[in-house]
């Protein structure tokens, strides 16, 4: 027996093969295709006059991020179902989780494509002086917010989906998580004064926008915090999420993983603190009225 066994004993290539498979599954998933189509459709409209493409971060965040939660939770469940149908396979759950983590390259690449369009559109249709950038708010600052809220959100959503797929593998868990995520995000936009600083703990929050002042409901404001450190915080959160999903495998020793989680968690707290304490510490108001 085992005549063909010799062809499959290359453990180093095991992860790469599975990752390629999961990348293809991600690319072909209907929810990804719908989300990507919605994101592309948003690019067909001329950007906002006052903020240019910076205000369109909602499109990749929803199309790639929120839909990505559904995609990744579904891929995780089907990977588990295939492994369960085979009873026992030599590829561990941890390796399978890591391979699914590699598939995050799909939403990341899609997010980057959107980012490239957003940068081009930002320069092609510059924002009006009543919008952003203004004063201390530079173009780099605006690019950072677009990267955080567009590209990193496109990856962050699927990471949440991976965690849900591993720890709450029930049908319907991902859609419920999407609703919860939307509600949390709405609350954490700095609309409520006490949450202006705390909002940076949330995985998605605006930095600039037409939040308005007394007498000018659409006045452009730049909220507190550093989008540069916030980006680092989001990367740390994504890393934490993948490691946390890998922790689900009870067959392996989990000591090393727990240590890594503690370190990444600590790094995330530090970056979040820097995001809150860095950048403008007062809400900046565009001196020009919105004109709306």
């Amino acid at each position, binding site marked *: *027996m*085992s*005549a*063909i*066994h010799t*062809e*499959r*004993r*290359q*453990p180093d*290539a*095991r992860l790469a*093969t*599975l990752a390629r*498979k999961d990348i293809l599954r991600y690319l072909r998933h209907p929810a990804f295709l719908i989300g990507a189509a919605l994101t592309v459709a948003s690019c067909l409209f001329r950007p906002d006059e006052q903020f240019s493409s910076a205000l369109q971060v909602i499109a990749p965040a929803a199309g790639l991020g929120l839909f990505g939660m559904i995609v990744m939770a579904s891929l995780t*469940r*089907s*990977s588990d*179902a*295939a*492994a*369960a*149908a*085979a*009873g*026992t*396979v*030599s*590829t*561990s759950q941890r390796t*399978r989780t890591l391979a699914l983590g590699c598939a995050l390259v799909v939403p990341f690449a899609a997010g980057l494509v959107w980012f490239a369009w957003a940068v081009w559109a930002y320069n092609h249709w510059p924002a009006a002086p009543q919008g952003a950038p203004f004063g201390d708010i530079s173009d780099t600052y605006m690019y950072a917010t677009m990267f955080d809220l567009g590209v990193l959100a496109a990856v962050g959503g699927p990471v949440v989906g991976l965690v849900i797929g591993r720890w709450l593998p029930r049908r319907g868990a991902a859609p419920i998580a999407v609703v919860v995520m939307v509600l949390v995000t709405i609350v954490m936009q700095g609309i409520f004064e006490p949450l202006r600083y705390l909002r940076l703990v949330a995985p998605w929050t605006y930095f600039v926008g037409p939040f308005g002042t007394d007498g000018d409901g659409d006045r452009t404001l730049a909220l507190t915090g550093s989008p540069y450190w916030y980006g680092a915080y989001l990367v740390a959160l994504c890393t934490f999420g993948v490691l946390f999903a890998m922790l689900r495998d009870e*067959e*392996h*020793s989990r000591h090393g993983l727990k240590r890594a989680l503690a370190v990444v968690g600590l790094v995330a707290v530090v970056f979040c603190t820097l995001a809150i304490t860095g950048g403008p510490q007062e809400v900046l108001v565009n001196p020009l009225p919105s004109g709306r």
Partner: protein
Amino acid sequence: MSTATAVLDGVSKSYGRTAALRTTDLELGYGVIGLLGPNGAGKTTMLRLVATSLPPTTGRILVAGHEVTASMAARTAARRCLGYLPQEVVFPRGMTAFSFLDYVAVLKEWQSADSRHREVLRVLELVKLGDRATKRIAKLSGGQRRRLALAQSLMGSPDLVVLDEPTTGLDPEQRASLCGILSGLAGTGTVLLSTHQTEDVAALCDRVIVLDDGAIRFDGTVVDLIATARGRVHVASLANPGALNSWRTGTGAVRSVGGQPGIDADAVEPTVEDAYLLLRAARQDNEGANR
């Protein structure tokens, strides 16, 4: 050196206070080995232990020379040598027969796409699903799904194939085909299967193990099992008094298993099922006597 493909050394499995498998020593060599027993006897537990999908409460298990209870690395090495068909299989949604097997093949570490696809097509042909490769699993019949599940366990021609009720849902033609496949595997490896179909055991197995209440009650050849019932199965015009089981056959005679034969009773050659029933009854009698 032992030629056993799998060894259970002092293995037991408990769920809380319930003993699913009592302390068991067992060696599985080449050939087809049938596992018989009533529901709840511990068959699935034993198969899952051998297939490394369940850790034992006590004892050690070796598969293809790897002590699976020792380390994750040994368990992984053992899993490369075995194929397992669970009792109940839930397939991933949206996959075709081919894409499912291809994905499982990747999980079984087939890296080269060419050889993987060849192997997927080979096992699909083996279970006679070659013409259903591009069909969605949801569109397959129950028997076809069962054969698809069987196909994944045969991928890579493993040294040890563990099958939990493989004939469930198969029609007689498919069962006969399965017997052909399994007997082919038995030449150079071990097939351990659980079943309620005693005729499958009679037709296919070199060795039979009867499990009851988590303990092995019989372990031997099919011929030896049948021999335990010799002289205790009769046909007559009336049922044997105290017969364990009796029924009127197509010829009008009454076939009785156990009990006291009547005057006109003729002893007939017992079957595996007769022997199994008598073995079970003997155990229940012993239990009753001990109470």
